[in-house]
């Protein structure tokens, strides 16, 4: 790896990090605006024009608040919890192909940090480590509500990971690769996987909601039963990290959904425009972000539309609804490819 690639990768990594943080920050603003729109209110409109500076004000407030670590809490684990949640949320962006290749001079750079052979599984691994952030934080608080919230979160995430993994198996059967780069480049020219795996997409989407602890699956922080759930005892920026990690997760899972099922940076009729490859890359990247924002909006739309599940309903749906459906999807996909490949 020569120096120019290394420098490009370093700059690109910083840009990804900043974009992720800024998008997550403005997701909080967007969430409040969407909620306000749905409830016929105005939403934040005091800080700056249209309340655009509201996320900055919120962040500043989080930093300035007094930090309380309960005396009965396990101090190191109490600090470790939000750190794990934030770190794993940010680590996932590394494998997502944000765009096609970029040509600067006579060098060709790929707009993907690491094209891992096992891209999808890496995302899963990070999600499964992310559970620890919630579990450790909730347990270390030494608070019954926090513990209950943590246990709810962990059992929910484990249950829905199964169905999510199975919906991915069907997707891998159609694409024949685990690398996100291959999956995206195969979807070139409107061969989006949503047309081949509609059932798998709905299973994956539902599980993504559950994995990010978003409504209607936000039982771990169900305020009428558990006060604040796993972050009841947290204050200041540690609470901020938990809340922020949720938005980062939402951004990343929108990006993963767009990559896996909606063609990533591919857009229709791009070949007919006759543009240079760099222009195509930039337009594709813009299109990718439009898809991501559409999914973030979907996340918010559903949160402010649907009421929360009851806990037994949640578990029944995961184990008795989604998993059999996912197995059926695998069988159907496998049968189809078995018989079409015979010819």
């Amino acid at each position: 790896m020569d120096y120019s690639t290394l420098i490009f990768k370093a700059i690109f990594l910083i840009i990804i990090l900043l974009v992720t943080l800024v998008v997550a920050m403005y997701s909080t603003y967007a969430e409040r605006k969407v909620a306000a729109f749905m409830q016929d209110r105005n939403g934040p409109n005091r800080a700056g024009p249209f309340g655009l500076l509201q996320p900055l004000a919120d962040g500043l407030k989080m930093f300035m608040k007094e930090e309380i670590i309960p005396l009965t809490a396990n101090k190191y684990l109490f600090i470790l919890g939000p750190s794990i949640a934030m770190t794993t949320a940010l680590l996932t962006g590394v494998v997502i192909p944000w765009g096609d290749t970029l040509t600067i001079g006579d060098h060709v750079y790929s707009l993907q940090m690491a094209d891992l052979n096992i891209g999808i599984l890496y995302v899963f691994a990070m999600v499964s480590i992310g559970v620890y952030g919630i579990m450790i934080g909730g347990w270390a608080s030494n608070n019954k509500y926090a513990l209950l919230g943590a246990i709810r979160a962990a059992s929910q995430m484990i249950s829905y990971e199964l169905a999510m993994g199975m919906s991915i198996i069907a997707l891998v059967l159609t694409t024949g690769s685990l690398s996100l780069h291959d999956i995206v480049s195969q979807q070139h020219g409107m061969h989006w996987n949503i047309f081949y795996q509609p059932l798998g997409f709905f299973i994956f989407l539902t599980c993504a909601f559950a994995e990010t602890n978003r409504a209607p699956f936000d039982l771990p922080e169900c305020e009428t039963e558990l006060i604040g759930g796993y972050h009841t005892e947290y204050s200041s920026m540690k609470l901020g990290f938990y809340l922020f990690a949720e938005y980062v997760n939402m951004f990343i899972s929108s990006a993963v959904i767009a990559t896996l099922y909606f063609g990533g940076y591919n857009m229709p009729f791009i070949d007919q425009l006759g543009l240079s490859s760099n222009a195509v890359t930039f337009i594709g990247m813009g299109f990718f972000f439009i898809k991501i924002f559409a999914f973030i909006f979907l996340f918010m739309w559903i949160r402010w539309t649907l009421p929360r599940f009851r806990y037994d309903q949640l578990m029944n749906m995961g184990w008795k609804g989604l998993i059999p459906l996912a197995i059926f999807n695998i069988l159907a996909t496998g049968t189809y490819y078995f018989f079409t490949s015979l010819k």
Partner: protein
Amino acid sequence: MIFLFYLLSTIMIVCALLVVFSKNPINNVIYLILCFIAMAGHYILLNAQFLAVVHIIVYTGAIMVLFLFVIMLLNLNKAIIIRKSTVTRVSAVITGGIFFLVLLAATRQTFEIHAKYPFNSEIGLVSGIGKTLFGEFLLPFEISSILFISAMVGAMMFGKKDA
């Protein structure tokens, strides 16, 4: 690469020792998780990306979560100090020492290990593992899956009170 190998090995050994010596169950589990993550790093050094990620998903992401679950639900927060009689302690030390001696004697002259199959750097990738599991080792693979199913069914039977 060599540096990474030694770094990961040091992390693994220190964490493994802390798993044994730490008295608080939660800390034990967390050190074991760190140990597993370092082990996944070793897999990556061997170019076995698939094994590394599956190791993280299965061991770190599922099995250790269940461990942590049980410890949290039983609320085993306090350090456990097990008191044993002197006879038990002395006999334990002697048994352990003899076992160590046997291990040492067995491995003293086996410095060179010849692998049956030549090392293949592609073996840890998805296609390599898939072809090996579903070709050469198809029968053991299927039998182990039956074993898992029977374990799952057995656990369900135990879980049901009035079965």
